[in-house]
């Protein structure tokens, strides 16, 4: 009987098919991806059962961190530049083209308008640090002031959030306001923001949350 010959097989694996698959996956990810926006502070949003999705464009996001610092971001760079010019004009500030260009590229902003010039003069690494509040000693505090205390005339002139939101609305009327606040944010901060928004008649807005899964039997607890 002839012995069964064991065929010597080459260990080379044909990677062409594998390559096809990876290219396909890569294409999928490239086409569907929207990049995570860089945010100066890590914010853990609270969980909720609401399942409404947020629209993708025309969003004015108001970001609030645990300590109550308020930041804002707009999705269109052109809007951002227009809003900055509008706000600066209201405070009687002159900004150079270079400063406006720098502002356009910022993902998130959150500096008192009076310090905007010195903030924009920083390098981008330093800007990140300043937004985190590490430059307070150097005179650049983080967060947009939202002080609702009124002066003698009954106007809360230190409330810059109102000014920003108002001019953002003037620049883009389709804007939706989305509030993304950390779960542990003290309620007074939220209340200040809500009253500020109410004052300028921004009564509809979205609160960004994470999805909370609750069991069906917990939905209705009465018999």
């Amino acid at each position, binding site marked *: 009987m002839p012995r069964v010959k064991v065929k010597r097989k080459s260990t080379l694996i044909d990677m062409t098919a594998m390559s096809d698959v990876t290219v396909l996956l890569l294409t999928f990810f490239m086409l569907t991806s*929207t990049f995570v926006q860089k945010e100066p502070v890590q914010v853990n949003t609270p969980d909720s059962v609401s399942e409404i999705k947020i629209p993708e464009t025309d969003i004015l996001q108001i970001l609030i961190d645990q300590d109550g610092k308020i930041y804002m971001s707009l999705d269109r760079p052109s809007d951002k530049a227009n809003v900055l010019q509008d706000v600066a004009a209201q405070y009687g500030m002159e900004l150079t083209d270079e400063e406006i260009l720098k502002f356009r590229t910022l993902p998130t902003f959150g500096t008192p308008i009076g310090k905007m010039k010195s903030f924009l003069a920083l390098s981008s690494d330093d800007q990140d640090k300043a937004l985190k509040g590490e430059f307070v000693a150097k005179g650049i505090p983080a967060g947009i002031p939202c002080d609702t205390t009124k002066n003698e005339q009954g106007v809360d002139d230190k409330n810059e959030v109102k000014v920003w939101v108002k001019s953002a609305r003037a620049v883009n009327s389709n804007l939706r306001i989305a509030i993304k606040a950390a779960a542990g944010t003290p*309620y007074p901060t939220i209340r200040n923001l809500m009253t500020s928004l109410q004052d300028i008649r921004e009564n509809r807005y*979205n609160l*960004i949350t994470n999805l909370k899964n609750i069991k069906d039997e917990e939905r209705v*607890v009465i018999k």
Partner: protein
Amino acid sequence: MAEVQQKESGDGKKGKPKKMHIHVDFTPMVDMNMLLITFFMLCTTLKKPQTMEISMPSNDKNITEEDQTKVAASRAITILLGGQDKVYYYAGQPDYTDYTTLSETTFAADGLRAVLQDKNREIVTQLEDLKQEKLETGMPDEVFDEKAKEIKNVKTAPVVMIKGSDASSYKNLIDALDEMHLCGISKYAIVDITEGDQFLIDNYESKGALSNQIDTSKL
């Protein structure tokens, strides 16, 4: 390490053209693709964040104040958000002299939800029936929403006032709003806490020790 392998096959007979098998090694290509995929997977947000839509009453008309007084006491429920994730509620008008007018509950399923669904029993059962009907008949979403809205908007629906104290956090507010959603309550408002409400919480926490401090002349 990319290499083009040329393998000669055949037995090398003279005169016959050499057959060439060109193998391109795709391994580095796959490596690179995998790296790129990993990069894209880590840098993207596939899942869009959920949101809650709320509309606040406009400030200049002061509807809330009027609504507050108009609402029949039997239908009004006030939820007070306290510190340390505590939540209290009272129905109708509180009795400031009696600390037990306030009840404490939790955000768990058998806490605030049970209370509110009990008060809102009629609507909750109707909504459940509607959901069942939707499952059975395959009702389109628009019709369902329309009907649910009708059910929720009946005149006898309870009205909930959510008041957050200074010690509470944003999470408490979201939790409270969630309960509104789950209990089918469409009439609710986020209202500023009053001194009286804060007193109720303090009084409750101290088990009525503050009751004798009430300035009766102000009542």
